């Protein structure tokens, strides 16, 4: 065979592989959306779930998912930023740093159900936090932190050393150079990683079943007192999220419309994650243009 033929053949194989990936993706997305979207209604999104009768909604689950997501990011972002900045800007090149990096990698491949059980034993039982949003947020932080740290480290490393030298040569301290020059330049990448990890947190169920719990107590959406047990903002209350709800409805629910609810919930979950992903790209680009003052 001559070079031209081999090239044609290889191109053909690569195209086939790419197309099969896209077909699988579209099939899954299409199936979920096709089955779920017709059942999504304003009523479905804004009413409480029903345990025994049909016609229940996902209001509380949807809110719990978003609230848990925000709390998780509040907890994990500062830690991830600190660790990422240390690893990329300050850590010396020696075996301790390599050990930290390897640990982060191992942690990132930990099965989420293991993280959940660990969270259950440590936070729920030992530290007496009970099934609560806080326990869930800390467990999700464990689950999220490795990839977030890695992403922040990689984004910072992506900024050329010339930028750091420019800062240093103007009499800026390493800290100023890092925070005012390197970090802004890396921000689009960090933001994209953050939003993608938000998608992962949003869809996580296994780590939450034993930490945030499987019940969604009725809460008062007008009670803004974070310490009140009926407040929707109280982080010490148990909270079933959307992904956990789907799991529960499918395994132990007795409502007659369980199938409908799980299809529609899955569709909502997928749509929210799609919005996160598309939003990540859009915001990342926008931010980059703003910071670099292009356009």
């Amino acid at each position: 065979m001559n070079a031209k033929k081999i090239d044609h053949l290889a191109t053909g194989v690569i195209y086939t592989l790419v197309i099969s990936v896209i077909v699988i993706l579209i099939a899954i997305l299409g199936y979920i959306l096709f089955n779920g979207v017709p059942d999504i209604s304003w009523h479905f999104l804004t009413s409480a779930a029903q345990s025994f009768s049909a016609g229940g909604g996902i209001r509380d689950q949807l809110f719990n998912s978003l609230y848990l997501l925000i709390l998780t990011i509040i907890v994990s972002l500062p830690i991830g930023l600190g660790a990422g900045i240390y690893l990329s800007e300050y850590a010396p090149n020696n075996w301790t740093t390599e050990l930290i990096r390897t640990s982060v990698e191992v942690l990132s491949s930990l099965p989420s159900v293991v993280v959940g059980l660990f969270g259950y034993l440590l936070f729920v039982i030992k530290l007496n936090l009970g099934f609560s949003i806080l326990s869930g947020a800390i467990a999700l932080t464990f689950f999220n932190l490795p990839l977030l740290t890695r992403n922040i480290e990689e984004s910072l490393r992506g900024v050329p050393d010339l930028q750091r030298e420019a800062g240093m040569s103007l009499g800026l301290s390493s800290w100023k150079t890092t925070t005012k020059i390197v970090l802004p330049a890396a921000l689009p990448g960090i933001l994209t990683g953050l939003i993608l990890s938000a998608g992962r947190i949003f869809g996580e169920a296994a780590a939450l079943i034993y930490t945030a719990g499987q019940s969604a107590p009725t809460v008062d959406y007008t009670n803004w007192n974070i310490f009140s047990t009926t407040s929707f903002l109280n982080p010490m209350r148990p909270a079933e999220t959307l992904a956990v709800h789907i799991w529960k409805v499918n395994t132990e629910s007795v409502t007659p419309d369980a199938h409908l609810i799980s299809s529609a919930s899955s569709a909502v979950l997928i749509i929210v994650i799609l919005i996160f992903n598309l939003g990540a790209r859009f915001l990342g680009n926008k931010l980059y243009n703003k910071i670099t003052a292009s356009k």
Partner: protein
Amino acid sequence: MKEYNLTDSYITDITEKKALSTDNLQVYYGDNHAIFDANLNFPRYKITALIGASGCGKSTFLRCLNRMNDKVARVDGEIMYRNTDINSSKINVYEVRKHIGMVFQRPNPFAKSIKENIIFALKNAGINQKDELEERLEQSLKSAALWDEVKDNLNKSALALSGGQQQRLCIARSIAMKPDILLLDEPASALDPISTSKIEETLQTLKKDYSIIIVTHNLQQASRISDYTAFLHLGHIIEYNSTVNVFTHPKMRPTEDYVSGNFG
């Protein structure tokens, strides 16, 4: 490569006022001795060129002068600036770098607007009055011969400028800090001939107010713009003299071979 006796050297005395001098400067990268006993006096308000083959240590030497080799290499010896040894560990390196600015081989503007590139470090140094910032912005861009090209687009991204403009912006950014000394590490090697000649013109006007030390690969450039030239070979300073003498009457054999192209 020809073998030369590296211990012989010819270092001329500088009778003019000195901007900076090094005394027995040694640089080590781990166990690798990169610069041997560098004793040089740099005159004020002149351009001094550092020339030599790749890997001779000229950039390494230059980077010592504003402590950019901290954490990269070990630097022993003294660097005297205004009667102070700035190579001492007690010195505030950030303060040193405000007095001794640096421009790098590849243009490295910040990913910010043109204006922000200039005033960012100024604000960090505690200059906050708007008039002062505006004045320094205009002055530095004029000195770097960039003002006319960018004055209507000061809020545009610096990354949208051409390579030559970016490099002049980097020069402007350095001189906006009003340093005494400007170190340039092959500032024109990544640029086309037109941008190069603009940078050279800029340097000629800048030397009225700044002492300039420039590393260059380009011998014509060294002979065109510099007043003094130091020739380095394998980490040793072989010859230091007025540029005219280095290029027309070199005292040392390696220098003669290098400037006449018989090197290596």
